[in-house]
């Protein structure tokens, strides 16, 4: 155990990540994003702007899409978190992930985990979204490579393949 993990100013916080119980010893004001990446090694969640504008740090918290850069980890105590690492099953890509691959919905990859989680959130609410629904559902996630068309097509395709079921 390192000296910093014995720091008395830190506290123990437990939550579920991708179905597994995780207990971390951290400063309560650490951002959920940093705890996921640095304490739990879940580096699929990316940091883009760090101020809730770009959506690349999106995760699901108790089923809701959130920007993990804006969440003090204390507020995640007891929550159920899903990150991009939680979508593949037994090494097989989830339907949305496969659709992104098939439709060329990923280029540099920084926005992709957030895009996919925003799409999961959308498809949970609207299993067969219209193009307008997709645009609105992903409107908080910025991509600087693809021009969005392939991303939107990937989500529509995942809907057709029954990703939400």
């Amino acid at each position, binding site marked *: 155990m390192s000296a910093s993990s014995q*720091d008395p*100013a830190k506290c123990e916080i437990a939550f579920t990540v991708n179905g597994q119980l995780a207990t971390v010893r*951290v*400063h*309560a*004001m*650490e*951002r959920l994003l940093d705890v996921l990446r640095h304490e739990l090694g879940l580096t699929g969640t990316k940091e883009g702007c*760090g*101020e*809730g*504008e770009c*959506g690349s740090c*999106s995760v699901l918290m108790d089923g*809701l*899409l*959130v*920007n993990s*850069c*804006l*969440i*003090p980890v*204390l*507020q995640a*105590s007891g929550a159920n978190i899903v990150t991009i690492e939680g979508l593949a099953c037994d090494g097989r890509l989830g339907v949305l992930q496969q659709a992104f691959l098939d439709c060329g919905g990923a280029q540099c990859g920084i926005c992709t985990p957030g895009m996919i989680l*925003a799409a999961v*959130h*959308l498809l949970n609410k609207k299993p067969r979204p219209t193009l307008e629904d997709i645009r*609105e*559902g992903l*409107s*908080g*996630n*910025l991509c600087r490579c693809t021009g969005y068309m392939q991303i939107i097509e990937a989500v529509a395709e995942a809907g057709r393949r029954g990703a939400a079921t």
Partner: protein
Amino acid sequence: MRAHPSEYEIVSPHTLSAVLSLLAQEPGVWLPIAGGTDVMVQYAAGKLAARKLVSIWNLPELRRIELSADEIQIGAGCTYTDLSEHEIVNREFTLLSRAARWTGGIANQNRGTIGGNIVNASPAADSLPALLVYEAELLLISARGERRVPYTSFHINYRETQIAPDELIRAICLKRRFPEYYAHARKVAARNAQAIAKVCLAALGRFADGFVEDIRLAVGSVAPVPLRLTATERAVNGKRIDPQLLQLARTTAASEVRPIDDIRSSARYRVAVAGNLVAEYLQQLSASEMKT
């Protein structure tokens, strides 16, 4: 310079009364944080003055929407998603549900709260002009008790409000008396999501027999506070909508707003757009009678 988490303290009491006692013990020391969509941005940028935070996220006492025959009380901790998905808010307070859908993106709507939007007191906030035209009242609560204040006079100056350091907004009260009104909202921005308005308008009014009745206009991003256009309202109330009135409304609105140049727009553009949005609303209002 990024903030270091070890320099901050955050606690999360489980009840509203525990939060209020903490605020009463050291007024002004503890900063309430709900969904964090404003506070965490300042924190990450190293600009958060407060070192002690008290989480009020998801406190059940603040997350209720209560209905009576003549009023809706929206808990200050309700998120934009709570508002845009609420049946009565959607049906009777469309300006508010629409503004909720315009604020940030989905992730911010799932965390940002209406109470947070009010106390953050940005003159550019999307939902505040709606609260002005509905003439909302705020229930402010502290360990000393509860008081009800009109929202119209809540904002004193830029980011300065009537709330005391030991107080929280408990709920926002809206009278259910606008079914006959024609409601209209416009946000002029680079895009709807994740963009702060250059100018936004919320408008309510009735139009009967060719005359304007009880018009209410409020604009964002054109003054140090969200602004009700009272002089413009007086200028058009009781009048027939014709090209002269549209011109009068435009010039009166332009004389009432006090915008600045900033990264999003120029003062000159904002003055012109504010006038145009008011004129556009009046035209729609006069057309609304023909449709019915």
